């Protein structure tokens, strides 16, 4: 069964923290730190407001985060994959922004 958006967001924060601690590249750490702040900010919004789980944007965001988290799990064991993880989190953040816009408009 798929995780909820809250669970995926929580896993993202945990995974990004782990990568920031492991990554030696300063620039990658900087990008991960910015992404983590954006994801934390979105999680804050979803704590404050109830999000309709039937929205297609909800499923798309949860799915994109799931893919990014899967990549992050691999990157924790192989730091060469951090760049790919950053790309996947960037795509997930776009999906989160679309969901946030939908929720704000509702």
């Amino acid at each position: 069964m798929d995780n909820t958006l809250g669970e995926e967001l929580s896993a993202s924060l945990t995974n990004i923290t782990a990568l920031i601690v492991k990554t030696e590249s300063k620039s990658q750490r900087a990008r991960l730190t910015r992404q983590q702040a954006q994801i934390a900010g979105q999680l804050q919004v979803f704590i404050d407001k109830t999000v309709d789980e039937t929205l297609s944007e909800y499923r798309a965001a949860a799915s994109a985060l799931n893919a990014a988290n899967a990549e992050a799990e691999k990157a924790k064991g192989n730091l060469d994959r951090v760049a790919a993880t950053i790309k996947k989190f960037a795509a997930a953040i776009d999906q989160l922004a679309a969901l946030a816009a939908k929720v704000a408009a509702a």
Partner: protein
Amino acid sequence: MRRAYSLAVALLLLTGCALSARQKAAVSQFSDSAATLGDVTSSQLKAMRDGTVEMTKQRLLLAGRSRDANLGDQTSLDRGFEVSHVETVSGAAQALAAYGKSLAALVNDSQSAELQAASHDLVASLGRVPEAKEKLSDKQLEAIGTVVQEVGGLWVDWKRKEAVTTIVREARPVVDRLCDLLARDFAPRTGWVALQLQVIEDPLVAEATNVLYDGRSYDDRKRASDAIDLVHGNRMRRTEVLKRVSDAAAAMKKANAALAQAVESSAWSAQDIQAFAERAQSLRAAVKIIVKE
């Protein structure tokens, strides 16, 4: 002679109408556990709020302006644990504690003033929690408040039993509801408390790690180390306290059902009340270990 016999029979009948030693023990164990759960949860929420303010300050000190507008900043240091929010959840926990304390006062032969105070506190606590008011009619609230006022005089043991029975019966829907709410809010992976703490903790770990790795002086690294230490203390609450509160609240709901049976019939099991006592004890012990003076 005949009068003495009648008195003896009356006393025997009255004794039979009082709570048995086993029933008193069950109520006592339950009430202590409820007071522990309510008081510890309430104090931990306050500690989480204080921790939130400190962690947000540390993040701003280390990294400057918030990187995301939805995160706390210098104008919202307590973001996520605002007073009104904490007050509501803490009110629910305090209502459970007041429920336990009023039952304890009834079975521990407390003096009238102590009983009245516990009863007033219970009625006031229940009245303050919106979710409790939804589940409790004014008539039920009045019954809970009135029954303790009547404890006293020659029939004191019988009246104590009646008061315990009335409070347990009338408060049961609302106590069950409050237990559900605490179990949900403190659920370790999905409850709002866990997610809220993570929103505050993880960005601070990130900023502190960057300063620790990139800092050029001992003072830089010391600031980062202090922030990491602060997060560590607060993270212990997330990993150790939340699950125990959630488990204890779920156990209290089961124990409350067992308690309702215990005071109304002779056939009941102490198993659920014992299980609740163990979880409340575990919560108290964990908090003692993690709290730094």
